[in-house]
Structures are given as C-alpha cells and as structure tokens.
C-alpha cells in the first residue's frame, strides 16, 4: 500500500514536471478571476503595477465590487499582438451578475524575471473570440492513446497484485518462504 502510494505520488510529480510552458490564456483568466474577489483581489501577482493598471482599465470599480459579482469570466485563443515580436493578445469576455457584458483583450508578454507571462495592458470593446468563448486549450491526440494504455497498465498491475496476494493467502507457507 505504501509503495503504491509512493508510486502514484512520483507519477504525479513526473506529470507536474512534464508540464508544458505557460499558456497566456490561463494567466489572463487567473488575472480576471482575481478581480472577482473584491477588495481581496490581487491582480498585481500577474504583472505588478502594469497588471493593476490594466485591471483598472477593464473594471475601474473592481475593488469595491462584492466577491463573486462577475458571473462569467471567459477567454479566447491567444494570438500574436500586432506589431510586437513576442507579446500575445488574449481576448476576454466578462458578464456581471447584473447582466452587464464587457469584452476586450489583454496584452501579455514574457515576464522580465523569466518563467511565464505578465499582463502588460488591456482594453475593452469590440472583441470576438474564434473559439466562441469556450476554453481554447485541450488534450492532444496522443493523450487519448496514453489514457487507453494507462487503463491497460493499471488493470494489469491490479490483476497481478491481487493474484499474488490471493496465491500467498492460499499458501501461507510459500509467502513465508519468499
């Protein structure tokens, strides 16, 4: 049992280590969700003062809104920002509990400190998403093959373990000998 738990934890750590580079869409989504915490929101975590300024441009009263005042926060696929070499533009759509809809785009660029994206600016109005506002990232084809292989491996491991335990339980002497 302890070995199995250790194995699963190791597998999770390997998976975490295999994590792809950061997605700009995910960062913008978290930045927008932080505006849904009211005064407790921390948009500065996503790009310092520039991210706070961008938040003020999108929702000037985000600090005084009640937590949960934003009913929907959606982002579309990132695309290279016009005229910029590395910056990405991420479209977003916000719907408040009052029914107000705000669309816009956030500009993100690689953080100066390295390791991911930072929100550099944002503007509102007239933006449409090519993904129709459903989440744009997802599993590659190989991931589905891996899932099928994983079930075969898991079933085999489980069958072998239970078979061995059943055999040793039926012949306690052989278990003691081994």
């Amino acid at each position, binding site marked *: 049992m302890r070995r199995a738990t250790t194995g699963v934890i190791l597998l999770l750590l390997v998976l975490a280590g295999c994590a*792809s580079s950061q997605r700009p869409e995910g960062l913008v989504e978290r930045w927008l969700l932080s505006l849904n915490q009211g005064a407790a929101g921390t948009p500065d975590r996503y790009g310092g003062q520039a991210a706070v300024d961008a938040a003020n441009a999108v929702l000037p009263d985000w600090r005084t809104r009640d937590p949960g005042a934003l009913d929907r926060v959606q982002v579309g696929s990132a695309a290279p920002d016009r005229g910029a070499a590395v910056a990405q533009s991420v479209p977003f759509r916000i719907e408040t509990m009052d029914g107000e809809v705000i669309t816009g785009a956030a500009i993100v660029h690689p953080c100066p400190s390295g390791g991911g994206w930072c929100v550099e600016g944002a503007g509102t109005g007239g933006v449409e998403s090519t993904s129709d506002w459903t989440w744009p990232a997802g599993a590659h084809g190989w991931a589905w093959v891996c899932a099928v292989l994983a079930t075969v491996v898991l079933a085999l491991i489980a069958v072998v373990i239970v078979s061995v335990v059943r055999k040793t339980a039926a012949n306690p002497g052989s278990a003691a000998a081994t």
Partner: protein
Amino acid sequence: MSERDDRYRRKLLFLLSSATFFEGYDTFALPFVLSLVLVDLGASERAAGVVRAVTAIGTVVAFFLAARADRVGRKRLLLVTIVGYTIATAATAASPGLIWLTVAQFLAQVFLGAEWAVAITIVVEEFPREHRGRALGIVTSMNTLGAIFVGVLAAIGLQDLTSLGWRAFFLVGLVPLLLVARGRRSMFETERYEAVRGDDRSERLDHASLLEAWKPAYRATVLAVGLVTFFRFFVVSAGAFWWPYFAQQEVGMSVSLSGLYLAAAGLLGAAGFLVAGRMMDRFGRKPVFLVYMAGALVFGTWTFQVHDTGLMLPVLCAGIFFGLGSVAMTSAFSTEPFPTYVRSRAAAWCRNAFEVLGGVLGALTVGILGDHVSGPVGSIGDAMSLVTIAMLPAAMVVCWLFVPETNAEDMAAMDEAVLVG
C-alpha cells in the same frame, strides 16, 4: 410477532437514512457558506484551503472509529457517532474563530465518516438478503439528497432568514439528535452481531485488531474491493469536485446556471441509487456494477466533452445516475463478503483507506493535468475525460475477476463457518 418485523425495519431504514442524509448535508454545507464564513470570521482563501485539508483528514481518521463497531457493537457506535456529530455541528455554529471552526468540522467529519460505515453494516446485517440491495440503495441515496438539501436551503435564503447568517446551516445539523432520542429506545443491536458475540466460540476470534481484515482468509477480497473502490472514487470524486469549474470556466455557464444544473442532475441522478438497489437484488451485485461502470465510463467521459448547455443537462444526469449510483454496489462489496466479527473493520479499510485515498488523488491528478496555465493537458474537461478512461475499465476488470458475488450470501452460514473453523 417478531421484534424485527417489516415495521421495525422501516423505522430502522428511516434512522439510518437520516444518518447518511446528514453526511451528505454536512459535506456540502461548509463549501456553500464558505464565502460568508470568511467574511464573518475575517479569514482568507488560503486559510479556507487549510480548513478544507484538515477536515478531509477527519474522514481518514474516521477509519479508527468505524473499526470499533466490531468491538463495541453497531447500535452503540451509531448512536455515539450521531451524538458526536451533532455536538460537533453545534460547535461549528458557535465558532468564534477559524481555528475553532476547523477543529469542530474535523470532528464532525470523523463522526460522519464512521457513521456512514456503521450504517451500511447495519443494513447488511438487519435486512433479509432479498431486500438488502434495495435498502442499501435507499440509505446511500440519502447522501446525495442531503447535499441537494444544502442547495435548497441556500436557494430559499436560510442565511438571510435569521440574524444567525451562515451559522443557521449548522444548526440544521442538530436534527439527528432528536432522532437519536427516539431511536435509542426502539433500536436493537443487530441480530447477527448479537448472535456472534453471544456465542462462546467467538471468544477465540480477534474482535479488536485493525489488521484482522488482512488475515489470509480475507486479504485478497479486501484488496480487490479496495482497488475497485479506489479506481471508482478516483473518478467520481474528481468529477464532483471539478464539474462546476469546468462548466463555468470551459463551457461558459454562469455560476447560477451551473448550480441549478447540479441540483437538478443530483435530484434525477439520485434515482441511480434506488434503481441500482432494486437491480442488484434481482440480477446480482457484480453484473449491475459492471453495467453502472460502463454507463459511468460513457456518460462521465461525455459530460466533460460537452460544450453545449442544452445537451449538458441530460448527459450530466446520466453521468451522475451511473457514477454516484454505483456506490450502492461498492457498499455491498465492502461488507457482505466478510463475517460479522470483522465486517466493520473490512468496510473501514475499503472505504476510509482506499476510497478516501482515491478521492484525494483523483481531484489532485485532474488539477495537475488540467491546470489552465501550466498543466500538460491544459483543460480540466479533457483531463477529467482522460482520467475516466484510464481508471474505470481497471475497476471493471478487478471487479469481474476478483470480487465475490454476494447476492445470495447467507450471513448466518458464513458466521457459523467462521465459528466452527
């Protein structure tokens, strides 16, 4: 007329259903009022995460309490857990600060976890074999209805009806104490437990060791059932935890609509327990479990691939029907194959060790895989579908090959064999 006639069993079913109802109720009460609690007690989201982690550990600790039912008796432990839970929930309502609330909710989870295990054991021991499945279906379905009841109370604005605010939700948890006051006198110790403990030959059996369920005669069955419950709950727990996030962030449903869908699907899905209970009495535990797992595989995978809000509701209902409904069979698997003197400890291993571990790792795995910023998959929906495909067939294979069919199991004959042997 026998003391344990149909009327007594109906009363017993009501008492046990109340216990599992409040297990579901309490599990969802804190998440529902969390934002109010944080404001009232002046705590942060990070502190809320700690509260969640500590209370989850209570379900694991419940293992030690649940296992005591083989030593102190089912009736006594059930009453102790109900009283313990009501004291803990009253303490929660009276919380002056977050540490008090965390300790009270931890204790509530310890008592609730043990209460569930002993309730299932009582059903298996007190109902005739032709009605055991149906009774298990009813008792386990109450867990889901308890969870829905929290949503109903929130929808009618319980938090605003009195000056108590969020604390009113925990005062509702005092209701079981009234049931104990009634049940204490009219409830008997289970017939099987009394018969075994009253037999002189049971003196040589070990009624206390937690490892008794791992002795050679039961080891393979505990492991097989444990793995089945692990694989199943890995998926079911992750699905229940991540569906609201998936619906809101990846499908684009509003918070209110996703809440409405979850309540409606939960209500319809609760029928899955009742249908499972009737079917398992008629066709056996294993065939029905395999059908339910196949349904959960198809509709569970599909649920997390749907991006159309109109299609979501029927697919979600089917997913909940098969996914949650299958607990009626796993409850039978974890109790019926074992003789009375060790049954509660075997059930505690299967549920509080394997199942809880699967629940924790399932939600964690999907979160790591589907993290929107850095996850290898990058989508909670796809991560959830991948995990469903990876886990549920493994549960089906282990069940098919190693879990014994107990539909026609004669508990008295099984106990006699142990006492003689």
